[in-house]
């Protein structure tokens, strides 16, 4: 019994152990930032590697906590993403005064996400969600000298409060009508009754806020722009990914009786999200804002896959997020390096970037191509699977408009590529020496972008897991 407990909670326990280790490190003698960062990155790698061994399926805490192969795989994706972000922020954290605190906050947030993904009960889900959000607001403030950073933190925490309020209201209504919070038991008590629908809408609005679906997306751009790049990438990749991972089983299982309603809601939100995200992205000059809006549009595509309501839908969502981790982090990685070492963040600053930094230019270009969905980059396969899974419902309007928007998105991704390669500039960003750790992460992303699409077993593996839901 006790061993089972340890095995099922293994990934959470490893993170907790790292948190404590870091606390001791903080209490001990002063170390240079470099050595702290090296230790942390090694620990995070160990954490990632540990996720691949000795896993078991099962439930504990009276079905409140559950785990299975798919959930383990999802947690591994998040571990990988976090490790990559950590490698990339090396250049920025090297001179920061509060390195250990930064990691403590993000690790706590990650721990919250793990509990959220593993939840089998709405209360557990809510606890995990809050645990993952609050430390992030503090982390958003970590560019201590910049007022924008504080503003971002403030906006994040206040808007989160709105969403949590609604979410909690929704959960309490669900409890009111069904008398239970367990995913397994809720469906028996739900029907397409107005009160039940209202409960669902409130609950779903809270989720939509976290994944920044339109019209709950407005906080995204300001927070992404103001927060340090590391936090922005964490928000846009890890945080969104975690909520989407848990959204799918909640919709497919707990809210199964309302499937007709949530399909319609997803239909409306997916379209609005794709279109609005794209329209805003077209005009952005700041690259972080640009990626914020483009990532809003990406979420719209993910919702198309979610709407499928089938194992193929689940698999396409997980696969896309894996691809998205590589593509988006490659883009953010380059941007964070340039932002930390050259202080430039605008598209116009990148004119002539290729002449001085060919390596970074190629990485950014390939990442953008993958985000835009150009074959043979992995992003193309990701979008293809999302659309084909969504198409199985036979709603051609949704698929057509989504596909049309792929072309629009193509335009703005290409705009950045054009600035990098084709526009001339008197004073391009000077040559940047990329430190070893960020370089490592960029290479990993590059390999990921190329291989996850072409190596078919990745998708096959995820698909085989998805029957387990």
């Amino acid at each position, binding site marked *: 019994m006790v061993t089972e407990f340890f095995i099922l909670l293994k990934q959470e326990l490893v993170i907790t152990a790292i948190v404590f280790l870091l606390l001791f490190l903080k209490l001990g003698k002063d170390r240079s930032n470099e050595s702290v960062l090296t230790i942390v990155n090694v620990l995070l790698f160990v954490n990632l590697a540990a996720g691949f061994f000795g896993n078991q399926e099962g439930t504990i805490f009276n079905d409140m906590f559950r785990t299975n192969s798919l959930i383990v795989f999802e947690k591994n994706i998040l571990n990988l993403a976090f490790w990559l972000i950590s490698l990339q922020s090396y250049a920025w954290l090297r001179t920061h005064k509060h390195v250990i605190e930064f990691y403590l906050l993000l690790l706590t947030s990650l721990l919250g996400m793990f509990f959220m993904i593993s939840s089998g009960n709405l209360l557990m889900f809510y606890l995990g969600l809050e645990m993952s959000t609050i430390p992030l607001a503090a982390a958003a403030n970590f560019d201590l000298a910049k007022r924008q950073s504080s503003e971002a933190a*403030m*906006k994040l925490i*206040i*808007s989160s409060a*709105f*969403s949590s309020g*609604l979410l909690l209201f929704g959960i309490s209504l669900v409890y009111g009508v069904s008398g239970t919070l367990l995913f397994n038991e809720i469906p028996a008590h739900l029907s*397409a009754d*107005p009160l039940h*629908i*209202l409960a669902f*809408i*409130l609950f*779903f*609005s809270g989720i939509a*806020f976290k994944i920044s679906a339109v*019209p*709950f997306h*407005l*906080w995204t*751009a*300001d927070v992404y722009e103001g927060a340090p790049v590391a936090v922005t990438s964490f928000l846009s990749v890890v945080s969104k990914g975690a909520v989407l991972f848990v959204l799918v089983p909640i919709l497919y299982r707990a809210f199964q009786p309302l499937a007709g*309603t949530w399909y*319609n*809601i997803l239909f*409306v939100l997916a379209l609005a999200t794709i279109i*609005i995200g794209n*329209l*805003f992205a*077209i*005009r952005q000059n700041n690259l972080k804002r640009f990626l914020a809006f483009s990532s809003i549009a990406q979420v719209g595509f993910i919702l198309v896959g979610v709407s499928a309501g089938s194992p*193929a839908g689940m698999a396409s969502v997980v696969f896309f997020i894996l691809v998205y981790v590589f593509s988006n982090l490659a883009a953010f990685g380059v941007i964070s390096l340039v932002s930390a070492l050259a202080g430039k963040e605008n598209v116009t600053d990148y004119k002539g970037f290729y002449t001085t930094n060919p390596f970074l230019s190629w990485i950014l270009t390939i990442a953008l191509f993958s985000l835009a969905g*150009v*074959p*043979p980059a992995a992003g193309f396969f990701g979008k*293809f*699977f999302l*659309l*084909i899974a969504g*198409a*199985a419902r036979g709603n*051609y309007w949704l*698929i*057509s408009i989504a*596909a*049309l928007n*792929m*072309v*629009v998105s*193509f*335009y703005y991704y*290409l705009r950045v590529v*054009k600035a990098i*390669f*084709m526009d*001339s500039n008197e004073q391009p960003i000077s040559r940047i020496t990329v430190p070893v750790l960020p370089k490592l992460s960029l290479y990993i992303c590059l390999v990921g972008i190329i291989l996850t699409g072409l190596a*078919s077993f990745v*998708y*096959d593996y995820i698909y085989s897991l998805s029957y387990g839901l």
Partner: protein
Amino acid sequence: MSNYSYIVWIPLLPLLTFLLLGLFGRRYVKNFSGILGSASLLVSTVLSLLAARQYFLQDGQLNGVYQKIIAFKFTWLEFSPNVSIDISAVIDPISVMMLVVVTFVSLMVHVFSLGYMKGEERFATYYAYLGLFTFSMLGLVLSGNLFQIYMFWELVGVSSYLLIGYYYYKPSAVAASKKAFIVTRFADLGFLIGILVLAFYGQTLDISMLIERLTSTQSAEFTGITTAGFLGVSMLTWGLSLVFIGGAGKSAMFPLHIWLPDAMEGPTPVSALIHAATMVVAGVYLVARLFPIFSVDGVSLQLVTYVGAFSALLAAIIACTQTDIKRVLAYSTMSQIGYMMFALGVSKQGGESGLGYMASMFHLFTHAFFKSLLFLGAGAVIHLVHSNDMKDMGGLRKLMPVTHIAFLVGCLAIAGVPPFAGFFSKEEILLAAFHSNKLIFGVALFTAALTSFYMFRLYFSIFWNKEAAHHPHDHGEGTFSMKFPLVILAICAVVVGFVPFAHFVTSDGVALETHMDLGFSAVPVGLSLLAILLASVMYRVANDKPDKVAGTMGGLYKAASRKFYMDELYLFITKKIIFPLVGQPIAWIDKNIVDGLMNWLAAVTAKISELIKGLQSGKVQNYALYFFGGVAALGVLFIYIWK
């Protein structure tokens, strides 16, 4: 069945060249890269010819029918138990024919570029791109799976983007490459949705299986796709029309042709490759690949026919008004591709009524030779004159005798003068159109005459017209490597028409007996000759050299002593009526309405984006308002309105 596994090397060699030159070219093999690229393509070409010999002459047939042979195949991705994505190489008449065409033309372009691109700083990069382009097209040709076609289709798009934008320091080249990429991608989207529709109803991505399922009226898949509909049109028509939109984008059919003239910004040999053998014929090839399915759906076939015929006519009219020699050739390509399209459109599957299919492929085959010849010839001219404009040319026949003769052969071939290659294929197309649709036949005939006119207008303006201006950097006609491909292609443009094409490539693999009908041929050939005559009267000599008119052809008019009036009449009809009343308005519509519509779409998108920017005010209280407003809206919508 004998072993065809060696054909894998045909696409792989250019790919290897691309990798090698792309990775090491600039540093290690800079000057050697052209030779390397050409050599590897030479091997590919030889292999293609061997494959063609083996397939057509030795073991391709079984009981008189050419078989479809899978040279190799492996399952790459299993999307669901029914739908898997394979990588395969399929050998059948059209793919073997295309292998020969693509490798041969590409080889000629490679060799020609040795001289033409000499001294360019990114010489190795250029050859790397050429390798990638050739590889993509070869992969596309061999695909036996719709998804594989799509992958290579996109690769063709990417590599053409790279090549059109090769002179990346020229803003016009950058704009052109972007335009080509975005317009064709827009069309590719239709293709992608079309694939999804066909795959969804056919439950497979494999082309042979798809054809089998969607053409037999008994199969469940066929019933499914014909009974399901969207906006009152059956899903079969939707799927095929969407696929055709993809093809029309790559093949520059109206109204998706707007990228083609701009794409002339790339190096001229690249235009030869794009126009003769790779990108623009990809659309025709796609329709031909799926032709059995198209042939059961009358509606989408009509779409192919009318779009093809209209594009052919439109492009021919526009070509008459252009003065940039590459643009004339670009519109002529569009016009000829239109020919191939409507030839497919008027065809049926199998037997005698499959004449259009055979004719279309035949024209694709001959066109590849004479069009690459014309483009390379134009390249040689531009190389000498350093200008694309006809006004800067004239009288070049003495300066560049080889190019002159080669170009003349190309013009005669495209004009359809016997015994040059274009004559044979064009006759078949006209015959096919005549038997199926008189309106299309009329359009085709008129277009044929126009073609002769504008091609000879081009020819006379370049090589005759006036005395050659003194060209300061007079480096003669170009190197041997530039003249050699011209000679080879000129020979081809004469002889390939005699290939007994109907024996090899037909819609159902059974040899088709064709016979030349002299009575039928008289009309189009006569019209062509008349048009050439007209062009010669108008353009052969400039006005300040009236005595030259007394030469060969002009004598006819002098003898009739009506020369002056005829001249005036022709001039009046063309300059005062055809140009301003027909040609220019069409060019204007093309430029302002068709192009304008695209620009308008872009402007509207930007405008809307500007308008809604106000939402993003930066104030949290506003965000909260939208947030709760969104919840309320969802609540009202889904509880009261849309239950």
